[in-house]
């Protein structure tokens, strides 16, 4: 019985054992089949995956091109920025370490929170950035006790530096992190997120030249991203350096002369259109865009009514005021409506269609010819001249001198100015041109608008005999010919007469800029005052002064030097002082300072602010 039972079990158990064995064999077959699938059938595919797994391409940033002035003074540089980083894995007690660093680096509550937030997002063997833009003192204090800070490193990174600070800030521009708009503007450049890109000025205009091409390092990495070794290295191609036509000394002289005021100065070489200085005040420090603004600083900057971020030299558009009178004179002579004997009587105003058109001088200038009219800026003379010439000829002459259209100097946001005409008025306002509008156009008011750059270019053309060059900022090569916008088509005798008038402005006994004679050189110029708001006048015609400074007129002055029949003019400039009042008192003295600086014999120069001779000392990489 028991044996039977055992016998029966034995038979049954054998069956069941082989069943188990069969099941196991089945399991092993599945494993084998799966291995066949993964290794034999899909082997190539996984081999590719494995290759991608272990190679990480890391960009090596290309040093961005530097920018120099015409004399090789550095305007934009790269400098090492010291950053404190902590590798949490090595730090051990991360919180304690940060607390011990606190007396040295003074983190704000917000910065600390941001660090702790990032701490949990990042792999712990990668250095976590704690603070950038360390000062020398901070670096040396940390370096001195670095052995007591486990996991702490000082990293050096190249960042943009603007050693001249606020000087030429609008011209040079600044860089910032690339955004979608930048990518559309530079479709040829392959940006990666976090890349820097020129946001304005030269930095933006010459982005392609300045940025160079980044290199690449092929690193073998493990699964967590830890680098094992370098496999291959493609070196970066550094960005091209840029040499500007700007003369830093003149630029700083211009800025010093404008200091405390809102306005712009453009100085050109009339012989070729090269921009020697382009200043706009107030300015800003582009280094702040690299460091980052506090919200308070940013608010202050953008809410300033004097628009520190705007480049008034090319974006500011002002009625050219009396500086436009030379255009009217040239138009009249070109049309044959005036010769050197033409005289008009100025009683202080004229009446046309029941409107009184005043001369700035209530008492009138009496009998004046062109030279005196320019020198004393007689309005009535030009009212009467304009009546003879007509708006069409004035418009033609204005355009011939480069007004009313962008110069395409190569900076974003350049204003085109405005030269009105009959057709323009019909198109914009739908009504006819009134004769009275010709009169106020003749004294540079009304619809007329010009940028300081256009005004400088206009006076440069007069100085050089009538050729309008395209203003350039970049000193490419010695043999490159300047680009011409308008060839000189001004009759020499016409020009000589106007120039005589412009010289009288400075050197005549009644000249409006006679107090701004240069110590070193004979100059010519034209003052201007452009109306900001329509003046209220008394019955007598006296202007009722507004108390609001913002209603004060803009002061203008255009000038060239030297003014001599034998010598070519080397400097042409335009000065605009917003709400400065009169051109003679506010703008002409600024021009004088520039001219004095530019023509002073070496050793006699007084720039007000000396260019930084030392510059940034070369910093050795620490840590």
């Amino acid at each position, binding site marked *: 019985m*028991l044996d039977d*039972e*055992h016998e029966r*079990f034995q038979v*049954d*158990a*054998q069956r*069941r*054992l*082989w*069943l*188990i*064995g069969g099941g*196991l*064999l089945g*399991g*092993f077959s*599945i*494993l*084998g089949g*799966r*291995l*066949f699938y*993964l*290794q*034999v059938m*899909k*082997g*190539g*595919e*996984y*081999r590719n*995956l*494995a290759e991608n*797994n*272990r190679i990480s391409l890391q960009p090596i940033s290309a040093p961005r091109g530097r920018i120099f002035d015409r004399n090789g003074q550095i305007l934009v540089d790269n400098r090492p920025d010291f950053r404190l980083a902590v590798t949490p894995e090595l730090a051990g007690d991360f919180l304690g370490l940060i607390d011990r660093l606190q007396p040295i680096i003074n983190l704000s509550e917000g910065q600390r929170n941001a660090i702790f937030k990032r701490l949990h997002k990042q792999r712990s063997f990668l250095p976590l950035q704690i603070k950038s833009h360390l000062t020398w003192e901070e670096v040396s204090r940390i370096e001195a006790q670095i052995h007591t800070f486990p996991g702490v490193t000082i990293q050096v990174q190249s960042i943009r530096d603007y050693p001249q600070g606020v000087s030429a800030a609008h011209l040079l521009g600044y860089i910032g992190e690339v955004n979608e708009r930048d990518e559309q503007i530079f479709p040829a450049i392959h940006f990666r997120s976090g890349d820097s890109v020129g946001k304005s000025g030269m930095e933006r205009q010459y982005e392609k030249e300045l940025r160079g091409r980044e290199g690449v390092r092929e690193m*073998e*990495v*493990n*699964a*967590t991203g*830890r680098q*094992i070794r370098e496999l291959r290295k493609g070196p970066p191609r550094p960005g091209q350096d840029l040499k500007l036509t700007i003369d830093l000394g003149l630029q700083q002289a211009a800025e010093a002369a404008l200091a405390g005021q809102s306005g712009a100065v453009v100085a050109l070489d009339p012989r070729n259109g090269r921009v020697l200085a382009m200043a706009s005040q107030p300015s800003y420090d582009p280094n702040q865009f690299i460091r980052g603004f506090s919200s308070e600083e940013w608010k202050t900057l953008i809410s300033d009514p004097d628009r520190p971020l705007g480049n008034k030299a090319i974006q500011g558009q002002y009625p050219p005021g009396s500086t436009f009178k030379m255009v009217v004179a040239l138009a009249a002579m070109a049309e044959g409506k005036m010769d050197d004997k033409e005289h008009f009587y100025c009683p202080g105003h004229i009446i046309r269609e029941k409107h009184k058109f005043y001369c700035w001088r209530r008492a009138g200038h009496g009998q004046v010819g062109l030279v005196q009219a320019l020198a004393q800026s007689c309005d009535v003379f030009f009212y009467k001249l304009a009546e003879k010439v007509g708006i069409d000829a004035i418009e033609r002459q204005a355009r011939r001198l480069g007004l009313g259209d962008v110069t395409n100097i190569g900076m974003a946001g350049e204003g085109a100015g405005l030269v009105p005409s009959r057709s323009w008025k019909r198109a914009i306002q739908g009504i006819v041109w009134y004769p009275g509008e010709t009169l106020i156009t003749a004294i540079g008011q009304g619809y007329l608008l010009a940028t300081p750059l256009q005004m400088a270019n206009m006076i440069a053309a007069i100085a050089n005999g009538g050729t309008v060059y395209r203003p350039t900022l970049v000193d490419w090569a010695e043999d490159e010919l300047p680009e011409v916008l308008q060839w000189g088509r001004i009759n020499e005798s016409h020009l000589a007469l106007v120039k005589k008038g412009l010289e009288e402005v400075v050197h005549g006994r009644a000249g409006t800029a006679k107090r701004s004679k240069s110590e070193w050189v004979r100059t010519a110029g034209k003052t201007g005052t452009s109306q900001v708001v329509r003046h209220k006048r008394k019955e007598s015609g006296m202007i009722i002064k507004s108390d609001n400074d913002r209603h004060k007129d803009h002061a203008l002055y255009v000038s060239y030097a030297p003014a001599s029949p034998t010598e070519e003019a080397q400097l042409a400039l335009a000065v605009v002082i917003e709400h400065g009042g009169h051109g003679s008192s506010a703008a002409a003295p600024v021009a004088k300072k520039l001219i004095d600086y530019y023509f002073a014999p070496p050793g006699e120069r007084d720039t007000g602010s000396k260019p930084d001779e030392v510059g940034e000392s070369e910093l050795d990489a620490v840590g």
Partner: protein
Amino acid sequence: MRLGRVNLTLSDRRGLLSLGGESPLSWRERFIRFPWSLFLLLVILASVGFVILYSAVGGEDNIRLLFRQMARFGVGLVIMLVLGLMGGEKIYRRYAYLFYGITLALLIAVFFAGTIGMGARRWLSIGGFLLQPSELMKVALIMALARYYHDRSATMRLGSEDLAIPLVMIAVPAAFIMKQPDLGTAIMVIAVGAVIMVVAGLSWQLIVGAITVFGASFPLAWNLLHDYQRRRITTLFFPEQDPLGAGYHIIQSKIAIGSGGVTGKGFMGGSQSHLDFLPERHTDFIFSVLAEEWGFLGGMALLLLYGLIIFRTLIIATQANDRYGVLVSVGMTSLFAFQVLVNIGMVIGLLPVVGIPLPFVSYGGSSLLTLMMAMGFSAHISLYSKHHGRSV
């Protein structure tokens, strides 16, 4: 007291440690009957394991890990020889319940006083030694179940209580192990227990009935789970849903294996293995290292080696002299085989990652020593097999 009898037999000169009335086997006989082919296969397997481990730990730099593993294997061989050669007739069967009871007590002690490591409470510190009762339980349960069915079948046919009582014997330790949590070991305990119940001779109706009830309870349990618990289970089975978390291991492992191709990248040549892409590469995922460096051929060779060992231990089961012997040896065989299947299955992406080491190849001591115990008990069965007409 039974312990008294142990003392008594210690002085028995004819057979050290042997018990029972019949004349014990002589040492010569024991040596002749010992399954040396199994012993040899295990030594070969372990040697292959050392080669793979050498590469997995990164070569010379971590050679001490290899030496430590070799030492463990040496201890394991001694355990196997002692258990296999020195155990007398019926002795293990006699103490099976006691062994099970003590192990269960230890397992419960772990629950209250265990040492926590790697997020689980698995170890018990006894006199400086870290003991992992869940590992011991694998062997203890096999022996206790075998003893149960052996005793029952001597007198009557198996009924439904023979389904219920063993289920409890399995479920209680499984529950404690699950709680540690050690899902892999718990599954292993349940699977091995199930194999013994099948081979023990339960009627097919009972087996099918049990499976049906078990299967039917699944949807019910699923509905009772919280969302996060369900999610945890779904990622277990579909790791690709979480490629940076749970799925990461398995994806990297598949890349390593697949990129090995037919012939592999050569010894120490596995980029995935050596660049830390492969997690746990010297423990649970060591098969990936083998497959990457030795390719399909190497993988198949290892499977073949495992197959031979399983076949050899299964032979022991078929030749066992009584029900206890059959059940113990099939239990030990399935314990070994399931670990191989589950480990490789998870490494090649067929099964969820549950944390089962690859027998004799993965770095680590607990599992190795448990398996050596199992091999020792199997060898002991072999000594007293049918051909020798002895009962164990």
